[in-house]
């Protein structure tokens, strides 16, 4: 009973996160300017990280959790680098 509720909620959450990834990917492909594409990429990796978390809950494996934290860290650094590149034209001054 309790396992059943968790399994169904994981399934619903994964469907919603997949839809969110599709929307962010659409904005990344379509976006009128470069800033929109970067924003779409940012949302895409955050949703991919959440998808990894739901996989970790389903399989009861903590390795997914660690990799999700690493994905979050690297994604933050990459979006900061993109923003600095758009603002100044170079990343390391």
């Amino acid at each position: 009973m309790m396992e059943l509720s968790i399994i169904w909620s994981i399934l619903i959450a994964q469907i919603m996160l997949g839809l969110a990834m599709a929307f962010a990917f659409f904005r990344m492909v379509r976006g009128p300017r470069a800033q929109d594409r970067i924003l779409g990429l940012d949302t895409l990796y955050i949703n991919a990280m959440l998808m990894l978390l739901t996989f970790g809950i389903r399989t009861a494996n903590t390795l997914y959790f660690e990799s999700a934290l690493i994905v979050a860290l690297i994604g933050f650094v990459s979006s900061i680098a993109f923003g600095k590149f758009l603002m100044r034209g170079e990343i390391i001054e």
Partner: protein
Amino acid sequence: MNPVLNMAIAVLVAALLIVGAVFSLLAAIGILRFPDLYTRMHAASKAGTIGSGLLLLAAGVHSLDAAILIRALAGFFFFVLTAPISAHLLAKAAHQAGYKLTKLSVVDQLPQKEEPRRR
């Protein structure tokens, strides 16, 4: 373990999962539907942060392990700290590049052409 407590934890994890996924989906719909970059960024940085925080909390509670729960809370803290930084930097870059606000917005108090700062 006590079956009532087990059931309560399962319901809590299920509710956190559903609510967090709904917030993430709403953030993505905002990114898809809002008219310009600034409103899109507003949706992504607020609703995206709370959605990812709730899902991290769900993963931490479900593991029933203090180390995982503390790491989940640290990840949530990291998100709260870093989402405004990247959103602010991206909005500043867009404003400097002359990205116009949408027609629906009322006032823009930052001067449009800002002189690039010299070192």
